[in-house]
C-alpha cells in the first residue's frame, strides 16, 4: 500500500488545473479575460484618477502644454503669405481679409475658412490656397472689369458675368469700358457686350446702352438719338440694321429714333417730322422698290 496523502493533494491540484483550463477554453470567458478585464481595468483606473479635480486640471494643463509644444514647432509655423495673380494693392487687400498674424502655427487657422473669405471678395473670381514650405500660397484669378453700369447715380464696374467688382465716382479712369444703364442691366452684361461688339454702324456715335423696363436695350447715340432694340433676337436686329444701312445709311441720316423692336417693321422717326413715321416693308426693300 502506497501513501495516499501526497497523491490526494496532487489529485485535487490536477482537477483544479483541468477545470481552469476548460474555463479558459470557453469562448465567452476567454473573451472576457482577454478584452473585458483589461478594458474594465483601464476605465476603472482612469475614473479613479480623474475623480480628483486636481488631477483633471493637471491633466488639462499638461495636455495643453503638450499641444502647444507640438503646434509651435518650426515645422508647423507659417512665415509668409505669397499671393500670385494680382497687383500690389489688391494683394494687400487680400492680406487684410485673411487677417493672419505671422508667424502662425498651421493648426491655428482653418485654410478652408480663409479660402471662402477670400473667395467672397468682389475682385476675386477663383482663389486657390495651399501650404507648402511654411508658406501659404494664394493663387488668385482676378475678375476682369468689362463694363460700367450706371445705376441711380452710382457707377459700378462689372465683369463679363455682371458681378460687381467695385464702385467708382467717375468714368474718367475707365473710358475704355462700355457703359450701360438702367435697372437690371447688370443681369444682361453678356448681351450688352454682344451689342457693343457687333454694333458696326453706330460704333463711333454710341454713348451707352440703356435697359428699358428691365426688358430690352436702347442704344443711346450722340446728338440725342436712339436705337430701340427688341427684347428677343438682338443679333437678328443688328444684322437687319447692317442690311438696311446699305440702303438708308442710317449713320449719315438725321433721325431721332430708330425703332428695331419689330425687325419686320422698322420705324424711323425723324427730327424735323416728329409726327411722321416711315414704315419699311421688308418685301419692298428686298425688291428694291424703296
Amino acid at each position, binding site marked *: 500500500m502506497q501513501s495516499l496523502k501526497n*497523491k490526494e493533494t496532487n*489529485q485535487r491540484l*490536477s*482537477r483544479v*488545473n*483541468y*477545470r481552469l*483550463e*476548460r474555463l479558459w*477554453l*470557453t469562448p465567452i470567458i476567454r473573451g472576457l479575460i482577454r478584452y473585458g478585464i483589461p478594458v474594465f481595468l483601464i476605465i476603472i483606473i482612469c475614473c479613479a484618477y480623474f475623480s480628483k479635480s486636481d488631477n483633471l486640471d493637471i491633466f488639462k494643463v499638461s495636455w495643453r502644454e503638450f499641444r502647444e509644444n507640438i503646434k509651435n514647432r518650426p515645422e508647423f509655423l507659417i512665415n509668409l503669405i505669397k499671393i500670385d495673380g494680382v497687383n500690389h494693392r489688391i494683394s494687400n487687400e487680400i492680406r487684410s481679409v485673411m487677417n493672419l498674424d505671422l508667424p502662425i502655427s498651421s493648426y491655428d487657422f482653418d485654410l478652408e475658412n480663409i479660402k471662402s473669405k477670400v473667395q467672397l471678395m468682389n475682385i476675386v473670381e477663383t482663389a486657390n490656397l495651399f501650404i507648402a514650405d511654411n508658406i501659404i500660397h494664394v493663387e488668385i484669378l482676378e475678375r476682369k472689369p468689362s463694363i460700367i453700369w450706371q445705376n441711380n447715380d452710382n457707377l459700378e464696374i462689372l465683369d463679363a458675368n455682371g458681378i460687381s467688382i467695385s464702385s467708382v465716382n467717375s468714368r474718367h479712369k475707365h473710358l475704355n469700358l462700355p457703359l450701360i444703364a438702367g435697372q437690371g442691366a447688370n443681369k444682361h452684361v453678356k448681351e450688352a457686350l454682344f451689342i457693343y461688339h457687333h454694333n458696326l454702324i453706330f460704333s463711333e456715335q454710341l454713348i451707352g446702352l440703356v435697359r428699358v423696363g428691365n426688358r430690352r436695350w436702347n442704344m443711346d447715340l450722340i446728338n440725342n438719338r436712339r436705337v430701340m432694340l427688341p427684347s428677343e433676337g438682338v443679333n437678328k436686329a443688328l444684322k437687319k440694321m447692317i442690311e438696311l444701312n446699305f440702303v438708308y445709311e442710317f449713320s449719315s441720316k438725321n433721325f431721332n429714333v430708330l425703332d428695331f423692336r419689330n425687325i419686320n417693321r422698322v420705324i424711323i422717326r425723324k427730327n424735323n417730322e416728329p409726327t411722321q413715321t416711315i414704315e419699311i416693308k421688308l418685301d419692298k426693300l428686298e425688291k428694291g422698290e424703296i
Partner: protein
Amino acid sequence: MNNLYETQRMMRKARKAAIQRGVIAVLDVGTSKIACFVLKFDTVKARDPQDPVGSMVGQADFKIIGASTIRSRGVKFGDIEIIRETERAIRTTVQAAQKMAGVRVDHVMACFSGGNPRSYGLSGTSVVQNGMVVESDIATVLSECEIPKYGSDRDVLHAQPVNFTLDHKNGLVDPRGQIGKKLSVDMHLLTVDSSSIEAILHCVKRCDLELAGLASSAYVSAISSMVEDEQEIGAACIEMGGGTTGVSIFLKKHMIYSDLVRIGGDHITSDISHGLQIPIDLAERIKNVNGGVLATGMDDRETIEIGGNTGDWEHDKRLVTRSELIGIIRPRVEETLEGIREILVSAGFEFLPSQRIVLTGGGSQIPGLDQLAAKILGQQVRMGRPLRVRGLPQAGSGPAFSSAVGLALFAAYPQDEWWDFEGSNKNYAERSIKRMTKWLRENW
C-alpha cells in the same frame, strides 16, 4: 435493462448535441495507454445519391483537431481498477487533446475492452401491422426477441439488429418500406459487467464531461482496420491490446460475435521481466526493440545487453541472446493465439464464407506474429492498420490506435442499435403521453 435503455438514449441525444456543436472527443481507455482524439465535424451535408459509394464515402466530413496519448494507470485487463488513477489519466489526456484542439470539449465517446464481454445471438418474429414495414414494426420485432438471462449485474453494451427476414426474403439490411406479413430479426447482443460501465461513467463525469456513447474496443478497432469486403464476407478482427486481446467476428458488415482473451502485451512484458529479472519498463523496452516470435540461427548470435540498475556489476552487465528472448515471448503469444482459436471455434468461425483474420492493436507489432498466427489460426492472416483519418498525427496512425480511430469513425457513423428505433409497443402509457404533448404542441 430499461435503465440502460434510457441511458443509451440519453447518450444518443448527447451525441446529437455534440455533432450539432461540431466537436466531440473520443476516448480509448486501454490497459497500457489512454488515447483521446478531438473530432471536429464539418457542416453536415446531405449525401448526394448520384455519388458513387466508395470505401471512404462520408468519412471526409470530420477531422481530428486534437490528439494525445498517455500511459494508462489503474486499468487492469481492460477494466478500471483504481478509479482515481484512471480518472486522473483521463483528465490529463483530455486536457492535452483539448489544448491542442484549442476548443473545450463537452461530450466524449468512450471505448473499453474489459468487462467480460459476452455475445448472444437473438431472434424474434412478429406480424407486420399495416402491410408495409415501418419503424415501429422494427421496434416491435426487436422487442419480441427473447432476452437471455445475462445476469442482474450485467448491462447491454451493443444490441444491433444484424439481419432481417420478411416472409421468405432473407438477408435484408433495412426492411423499412418493404411489404410483407411476417418480419423476423436476428440481433446481436453484447453484454458487459455493469461495474465497468459505471466506472467509466463515473470517471467521465468526474472530468466534467458528458458521455455520448460507449463501445466495445474489439468492435471499433474492427471498424477501422478491416476493409469493407472483409466485413461483408466474414472476417475476424483480433485486437491485441495491453491487457486483453479482443476478438470480433464480422459478417455482412455487422458484428456477429465478440469475445475476449485476458492476455495481452503487458503479460509478455511481465514474462520478460520475470524471466530476465529486470524492471518492467526495461522489459517493455527490450520487448519493443528486440522482441520477436520466430527465432532463426542468426538470433543465437545476436546478444542483447539487458542492463539493470541494481548496482551489482555482474547483474547489470548480463547479456542474453535474442533466441532466449524469443523463447520467453513466444509461449505467451502462442497461448494468446490458442485462446483466440478456441473462441473462433466456439463461435463457429469456420462456417463463415471467408476465414480472413485481421491482426491489429499494439501487440500485433511483434515481428513474425503474422507467420505464427498463420500456423495457429489459419492461412488467411493479415496485419491490419487503422484507416487514415483526416488530421490524424503520424504518431497516432499505428495499429495501437486502431480502436481510437475506429471509435472516431463510430462517432461519426454509428450503427443503428435497438434503442434507436422509436415506438415500442411495450410502453403504451408513455406513448399516449407523448402523443398528447405532441398534440398540445401542434395545436397551441
